[in-house]
Structures are given as C-alpha cells and as structure tokens.
C-alpha cells in the first residue's frame, strides 16, 4: 500500500540513527578541552552584545524590522521571477496582475517609509 514511501522511511530512520549515534558517541570518544571559544555561538548568528546581564541579550529592534523588510522584498522577487519566465504566455492579464501586485506591495512600502521605518539611527 505504501510501497513508494518505504525507502523514505528507511532514509528517515537512517538519518535519525546517524544523528543519535553522533551525539551519543561524541562525549564518549572525544577529547575534553574547554576554552572560551567553545562556548561561543556557532559560526553564524549575531554575537550578543553587550553580553546578557539578566535574561537574554538585547538586540536593537531595528534589526528585526530590517530583517522583516528584507524578507518581504525577497518574497516580492520570488513572485516576480516566475512571472518574468512566462511573461510572454501570460499576456496582458499577467501584466495587469503583476502591476496590481507591485502596487499593493508598494502601499505597504509607502507606509513604512513615511512612518520612518527605513531610518536607522
């Protein structure tokens, strides 16, 4: 009944097994030498600065705002690409739809712009 999915399940089991195995084996066989760098955030992400005193470290709110705006523009691009690829076959209807989409998106941009969302102080 579920034939096509059996390989998937096997794959999943394998991945899970590997993850569990790795996590379990590391403390057993690995060397234990601690230093400050070991406790730093791993590779990516922002170094919390200043260091947290109580609770979590503080981030400028503008960071989130900018990140969110980035995602929004990103999504706009995501939608424009497929349109661009098949613009010919979509005809005038496609143009109208995309213009409407960009305009709607533009309203939100205008709002953010006029209310100072793009200013970083």
């Amino acid at each position, binding site marked *: 009944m579920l034939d096509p999915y059996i390989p998937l399940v096997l794959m999943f089991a394998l991945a899970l097994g590997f993850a569990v195995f790795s996590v379990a084996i590391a403390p057993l066989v690995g060397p234990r030498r601690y230093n400050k760098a070991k406790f730093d955030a791993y590779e990516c992400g922002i170094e919390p600065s200043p260091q947290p005193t109580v609770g979590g470290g503080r981030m400028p709110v503008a960071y989130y705002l900018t990140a969110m705006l980035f995602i929004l523009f990103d999504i706009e691009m995501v939608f424009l690409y497929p349109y661009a690829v098949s613009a010919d076959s*979509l005809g005038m209807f496609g143009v109208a739809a995309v213009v409407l989409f960009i305009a709607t998106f533009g309203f939100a941009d205008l709002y953010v712009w006029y209310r100072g969302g793009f200013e970083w102080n």
Partner: protein
Amino acid sequence: MGVTTQTGAVILAQQSIAPPPIHYSAIAPVLIVLGAACLAVLVEAFVPRRLRWSVQVGLSLCTLVAAGAWLVVYARGEPMGLTTLADTLAIDTPTLFLWGTLLVLGLASILLIADRSVEPGGAFVAESSAAPSPSPRAASGGSTGGTATSIAPAPTPAPARATASVAEMRTEVFPLGLFSLGGMMVFCAANDLLTMFIALEALSLPLYVMCGLARRRRLLSQEAAVKYFLLGAFASAFFLYGLALLYGYAGSVELSAIADATAGSLRSDTLLFAGLGLLVVGLLFKGSVGPFHMWTPDVYHGAPTAVTGFMAACTKVAAFGAILRVLHVAFEASSWEWHWVLWTVAVVSMVIGAVLGLTQSDIKRMVAYSSIAHAGFLLIGAITLTDEGLSATLFYLLAYGVTTIAVFGVISLVRTSEGEATHLSAWSGLAKRSPLIAWVFTFLLLALAGIPLTSGFMGKFVVFSAALTAGMAPLVVIALVASAVAAFFYLRVIVLMHFNEPAPDGPTVSVPGAFTTAAITLGVVVTLLLGVLPTPVLDWASVGGFVS
C-alpha cells in the same frame, strides 16, 4: 507509483495561458473590503495624525456598508452558485450568507473598536507594536518608550505606563481589522485547500497584532498576542501538513477533486485520514473547539475587549464556514468512517466549555469557555452533513456572533479607574447601580444560555433538531446536558448582578458613546428579532447548498 505520476504532472506546457474568467460582481464584496484595507494603509501613511481617526472610522464603516449593499443587491438577483478565479473561490448561497454575517459582525466590531468615549483616547495604543515586528522587549515587560509617531525604536528606558495613558489611539487597528475581515471572507469561500491556507494566514496575522494593542494591561495584552501567534503558527503547520498529505492522496488541492478521489478509489486510506485529521486540527483551532481551545481563555482575556468581540464572533464564523465547506464538499463520501471522531471532539468541546466555565472568576474568561461550549454545539450542526444541518449552523453562527459582540460591548462599559473591571466580584449588584445595563446583559446571557424568545434558543433548537433528524440522538442528549450545565454559569452572573449587594468600591458603569451604544443596540435587537421572528433569516440560510 503515485510519486512518478505527480512529478510528471509538474512539467507545464509552454503555450500561452488563457486567464481564468473572473466574476467580478460576485467577488466584489471581498474586493471592496481588501481594496479599502489597502487604502487605509495609505491613509495611515499620508493623512495627518489628528484627522486619521475620523478618516479611518469613516472609511471602514463606508466600506462595510458598501460591501454589504453590494452583497444585498447581488443576492437579490438570486444568483446561481458559481466558482470563479480558476475555481479557487466558490460563491454559493452559504458563502453569501456567511459574507453577510461577517459584514454585520464586522460592522458591530468596528463600532466597538472605534469608540473613544469609554476610554479617553480609545482603547488602542501601540508603543512598539506599531512597527511591523513586535519588540521583544515590550513583551518582556519593558518598553521601548518610542513616541507614537515614530516606529523607529529609541532604546531609551522610559516610563511606559505613564505615556500609555496619554498617547493617542492608534488607528492601524482599522486596516488590520479590514485585512482580517477580507481574509475571513476568502476563507469561508475558498474552494481549494491552498487558497484556504492563504486566507487562514491573511485572517490570522492581523489578529495577532490586534491582540497586542490594548492600552490598559499591556503586558497581558502582549502576552496574549505572542501566545496566539505561537499557537496559531503551530496550528497552521498542522493544517499545511494535512494539506500536503491530502495532495498526496488526491493529486489535487481542490475540494471537489478530493471528493472525487474519496468517492471510490483504491488509494491509500492512510493518507486520506491522516491528512483529514491534521487539516481538521488546524480548522478546529481557529474555531476554538476543545481540545484545541487552550489559547482561547488567555487570548480573550488579554486582548482589548473590542478585539476580543471581533475575534470571538468573526473568527468563529469564518472557521466554521470553512469547516462546513470542507466537510460537506470534500469529505462527505468518507463521513461514515470519520464521523465518530468528530462526535468525540464535539463532546469534549461541550464538556470542557461547560465544566470549566463554572469556576471562572473573570468574565472574559467565562465568555471564552462559553465560546468553547458553543463551538461544540456548532460542530454538531456541522457534522450532520445535511442541508438542514447546514442552514441551522449558519443561523447559529449569526445568532451567536451578534450576541457575543454585544456581550463584549457591555463588558467594555463596566470599569474601575484601572480599566475594565472584568473580575466577577466587581459585577455584584450591578442592577442596583445601573439597571438598564444589567438587564441588557441579563438578556444577552439568557440568549447565550438558550432561553426561549432569544436567538440562542432558536439556534440551539434548529441545530439540535437537525442533529436528531440526522440520527445523532445521543449527541443531542449530551448537548442538552451541557447546555443545562452551562446555563449555571450564566445564571451565576445574573444572580450576582441582580441579587447581591454592590461592593462599596465597585466599578462605575461608563455612559457608552454613540458607537458602543449602536453596537450593543444592534446586538440586542438582532438577538431578540432572531428569537421571535427567525423565519426570514432561516429562509435565507436554507436557500441552497455548496457548489464546488
């Protein structure tokens, strides 16, 4: 086997694509609401501060009236049910009825939201929430202290409460409400699961923000918003996962295609029922049906009261509209297997709502549990899968929504200097202080309890009799017992208001402004009318069924 055919179908032909036909006159109400929402965003950007409130209120009210008028004109032409926008929306009689309900409830909610007389400056303020992303610091007890005009955060520690009491009302709540309402209208008209999901997000995201806008008790309000957001995202994930499984099952996200697939195929029942289960969890969450109700009391409690009214009434209408459509259109053929599961859910919801409501000491939480119990009753109507059950559920939704908004309208009037007095002890002896409000509230509570001559009775009556006809007698017996138990806690409030001595330092009852008065009056009149003269509305609700 299934995998290969699906991957094959992904490759599209590169010829010119004909645009789908669009019935603009049918979807005009949605376009009006969403268009006005966009316009309202521009108003926020360009209209000077002091004019914004009046412009936004006027715009919102005009929008709803215009959309309603269009709907009435369109519906009077007795249109055939149709699907449009490449079969993504189905505009049939239930859709029109649900849209009408949503517009009426939306109008009442906007009236409540717009009121500035009860709380000087309006009940809405957003220190940091005006920014597209909520500040984590505000949620954790601090405040960015940013002035209301600038969303650019100034990370200076500032006395939060003091500024909150003088800041002017934030008018973003109006476009947010309109967007949410537009999402709801699409949600209950969506004819495929993907559209339904987009609509679900469109209605939910503005609601999350609206929950966090309370002027008073900001911490509670923002906590509610975050909770609602996290759990809502969780529920959306359920929905989306169910959608994916159903796509795997039927090879399409269209409801009619799923119905065809279930009607007799040798496909995997595992995919079907796992998918249905997950999908339903997402929908039940929105309708605050137990056991997926956990967010309801906290969010109802924390959100500004007007928004709670909007959420309680409109979200429930939209969620049950979608549940009705999904169950009727896509899963009718398989109902023999799944109906027991939803029977159980309905029972659980009624029991949780009725029993837990008994020990609530906060009036908003009590109404939240009442809404959970009502969700159970509504679910009974939804799973009958008969035309009678459909019209009964539609009627119940309208009746419940109108009464609920009026209830929250009254709740917003009883206040101390600290804000609304939602603790039940503050309501003791209210009849002695202000008999009119007490009687209005009594009437509304009786409607919620389902006493004859109120819409609540008619709603319960038609739903239960439809369920009986559909052979669900045991469920009806449980529902009757649950409504008897639930009647207790409404009664407790009534007794408290009429038969107890008022507390010496009790709350004052604000004189409602024109907007709140209008909303409450609308609620009371409709509640009474639906109880005494339900005929026309019942007729409208039973004109026709779903198309797909």
